[in-house]
């Protein structure tokens, strides 16, 4: 049972444009969400997070939006750069501090 769903396995965008990565969740007990970025042969690295009491968090080129009623969050990258090409994982904390990951979305930013 996939509680965190990233329905797009891959996404391709042009350099300078916006990248939008989507994530849906089914467990209403999730209360804190994170995005991780992963390059090949490396471990995931933390990118940005958002608490369930907020609907937006911004850090430089990265913004995460949370729509609790729709159980949906998205990561916006503006402007996209070739170095952003990686697999992006959405993850969620439940009240017992257990982190559940989605399957990931491969982002390719073309020069």
């Amino acid at each position, binding site marked *: 049972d996939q509680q965190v769903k990233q329905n797009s396995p891959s996404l391709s965008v042009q350099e300078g444009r916006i990248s939008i990565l989507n994530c849906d969740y089914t467990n209403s007990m999730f209360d804190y969400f994170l995005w991780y970025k992963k390059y090949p042969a490396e*471990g995931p690295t933390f990118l940005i997070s958002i608490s369930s009491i907020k609907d937006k968090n911004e850090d430089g080129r990265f913004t995460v939006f949370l729509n609790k009623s729709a159980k949906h969050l998205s990561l916006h990258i503006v402007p996209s750069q070739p170095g952003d090409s990686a697999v992006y*994982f959405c993850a969620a904390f439940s009240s017992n501090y257990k982190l559940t990951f989605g399957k990931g979305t491969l982002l390719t930013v073309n020069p």
Partner: protein
Amino acid sequence: EAGVAQSPRYKIIEKRQSVAFWCNPISGHATLYWYQQILGQGPKLLIQFQNNGVVDDSQLPKDRFSAERLKGVDSTLKIQPAKLEDSAVYLCASSSTAARQPQHFGDGTRLSIL
């Protein structure tokens, strides 16, 4: 600060053999996690330690997997005997607390079972 260290980076064994992975977390991080990442999937938590005590091992296949963190610092994860379905990347992560803190990951051990 130095990151999470894992070894070996790669391991190839035959089914029914045993294998062990080692992890040294970021200095001062009390919480340590082992994850299994199968190709095309997200990381799945196997076991979580708080200092040298187990907090959650509900998804650890205890008939073949074991883990320990005896002195509350580094940790080992063992598989004995290995099955074909254990082929995956094994990731170690650490965080300063068990609360909603971002976990810092090592680069993982890629295990291939022949």
